[in-house]
């Protein structure tokens, strides 16, 4: 499959129109075409057999012309090289093709599924074992880690000695061995190379976080009182629901309990660009999402807390479209406060419960007068991305609004991604390798023909303006950085990105669609009230 073709250095594209899933669908379509071809060849063989019978029947009346007709008909009915043999060969090829597509699909599921289930089982067993076992396992893990560290640094120190051992270790760290894949390369990188610490060591990757989260969630659930029954269930939403219950109780006891959400339209629109200028691409849209965040360093600056934006774009052909911008978590207090974009909403969204952010966006779209037949682009960062995806997949929302595309940045949308997107809707998920947030649902994004994930390694990306973002998960999660990444991939020739940009172009009036002649943005602020 060719879905891993990098459109830029440090960028990996998964899924979408050029993804493996789309290619596997292509293989299924090819197999179906072969089966139809086999049926036609069988029909052809049947007709050729009729011709041969007619030639034989006529031979009694015209023996002189029969030999030539017979000789020329024989190739068509030859059991080894005739149409029937060709049909059998094509049918066998179609079956092999279907098997190949199934094997590709199963291989992906098996690896991911086994890792995930192993983590869930281990977390569950450890959680049920109780505090004494946790202490024992923790102590064993600490002792093991210290032992491994002493062993590795001692062996690596030997490379600075003049003996044969030093020579071998110096050889291990240099040359092709260090770059080799598999166990040989792994050992070379562990024991060879300069310094006492292997160069590859550093913070865990987002893949490691994604793998550990289900196990940690099951541990958390199993550690609670009573027996947990996690067989066949996703522990992440259950853990989020449990923690959410805890924060609700804490709010009740220590904070100000709230009873509802109030929404109002703000007078001043927040935008990084003049309000009359419509967004030209994904980067501009994410700039607008970024502009919705309040500035933590200077109170009163930046966007309004708890606000979302609804922008109307009027096109030259008289049509209209809409861009909805949803920022992520703005309040991290475990006690729910006035701002609906807070940790409580995070937990509710991951748990699959009704949440205030979804309520706010829906009410904002209704208040802005978004009709059901005009295309909408939903764009969100972090929590805002999860909300956008959940809304796009909601049947009631689909009846009310016409979503054309969903753009998320740094959002954990792997678990919430389903096949419920209406036909024609394209989604694109931007993820930075150094950002952990999009891995917190414990599931990698699926490979679906209309869902593209663009993963960027900020350490290798040439467009990054803030070089510290590659070394900090917090910086790597910044909405401004995602806007840069979005701008960098705009105009890519990767088929998955092109398919998404075509869908976005319908809303933004780009990619050959009627251009935007005027635009107006409304900001809606949500406030929880006691």
């Amino acid at each position, binding site marked *: 499959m060719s879905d891993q073709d990098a459109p830029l250095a440090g960028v990996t594209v998964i899924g979408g129109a050029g993804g493996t899933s789309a290619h596997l669908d292509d293989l299924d379509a*090819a197999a179906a075409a072969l089966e139809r071809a086999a049926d036609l060849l069988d029909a052809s063989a049947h007709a050729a057999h009729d011709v041969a019978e007619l030639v034989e029947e006529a031979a009694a009346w015209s023996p002189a012309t029969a030999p030539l007709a017979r000789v020329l008909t024989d190739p068509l009915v030859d059991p080894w090289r005739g149409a029937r043999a060709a049909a059998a*060969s094509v049918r066998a090829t179609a079956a092999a093709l279907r098997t190949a597509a199934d094997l590709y699909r199963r291989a992906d599921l098996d690896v991911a599924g086994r890792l995930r289930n192993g983590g869930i089982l281990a977390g569950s067993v450890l959680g049920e074992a109780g505090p004494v076992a946790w202490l024992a396992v923790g102590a064993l893990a600490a002792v093991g880690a210290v032992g491994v560290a002493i062993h590795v640094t001692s062996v690596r120190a030997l490379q600075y000695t003049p003996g044969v051992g030093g020579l071998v270790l110096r050889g291990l760290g240099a040359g092709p061995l260090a770059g080799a894949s598999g166990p040989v390369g792994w050992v070379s990188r562990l024991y060879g190379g300069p310094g006492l610490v292997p160069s590859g060591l550093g913070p865990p990757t987002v893949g490691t976080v994604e793998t550990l989260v289900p196990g940690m969630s099951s541990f958390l659930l199993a550690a609670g009182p009573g027996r947990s029954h996690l067989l066949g269930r996703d522990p992440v939403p259950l853990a989020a629901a449990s923690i959410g219950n805890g924060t609700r109780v804490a709010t009740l006891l220590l904070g100000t309990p709230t009873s509802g959400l109030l929404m109002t339209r703000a007078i001043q629109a927040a935008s990084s660009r003049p309000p009359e200028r419509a967004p030209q691409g994904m980067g501009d849209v994410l700039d607008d999402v970024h502009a919705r965040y309040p500035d933590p360093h200077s109170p009163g600056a930046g966007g309004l807390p708890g606000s979302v934006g609804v922008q109307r774009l009027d096109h030259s052909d008289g049509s209209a479209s809409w861009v909805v911008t949803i920022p992520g978590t703005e309040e991290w207090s475990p006690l729910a406060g006035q701002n609906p974009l807070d940790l409580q909403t995070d937990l509710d969204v991951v748990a699959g419960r009704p949440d205030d952010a979804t309520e706010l966006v829906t009410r904002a779209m209704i208040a802005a007068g978004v009709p059901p037949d005009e295309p909408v682009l939903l764009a969100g960062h972090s929590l805002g991305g999860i909300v956008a995806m959940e809304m796009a997949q909601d049947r009631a929302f689909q009846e009310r609004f016409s979503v054309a595309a969903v753009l998320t940045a740094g959002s954990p949308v792997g678990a919430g991604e389903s096949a419920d997107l209406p036909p024609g809707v394209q989604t694109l998920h931007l993820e930075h390798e150094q950002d952990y947030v999009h891995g917190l649902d414990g599931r990698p994004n699926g490979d679906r023909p209309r869902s593209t994930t663009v993963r960027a390694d900020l350490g290798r990306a040439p467009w990054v303006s803030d070089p510290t973002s590659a070394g900090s998960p917090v910086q790597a999660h910044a909405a401004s950085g995602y806007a840069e990444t979005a701008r960098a991939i705009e105009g890519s020739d990767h088929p998955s990105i092109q398919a998404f940009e075509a869908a976005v172009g319908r809303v933004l009036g780009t990619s050959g669609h009627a251009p935007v002649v005027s635009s107006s943005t409304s900001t809606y602020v949500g406030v929880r009230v006691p």
Partner: protein
Amino acid sequence: MAPPAGQHGTGQHHPGLPADGARTTPLAQAALGAVGDGLSGARTGLAAAADADWVSVAADRYRAVLADVLADVTRLTSARWSAHGPVLRHTSAADATRDDVAAARRAAVWEFPFP
């Protein structure tokens, strides 16, 4: 496929005698047409299947198998065109002979004028 001798055509059937009219030729023509249609449709399907965006060693083998089958279909299409003329000449000759024989026998047999 072919009806029993004496049941082709539109003419009156006389037991013990072959029926008259050109009967085998239209059937052969239709069957040859069906052979050509099937081969042509199969060729289109095979070409579409060969366009699958699949890159691997297995994909190379798959394309090699399809190329072989396409070559077979091309050969069969050519064989079908080669057979077309001689087969129809053969069935036409047979039909003409059968008509001649039927006409001769009809002329030689006195038929009782009353039912």
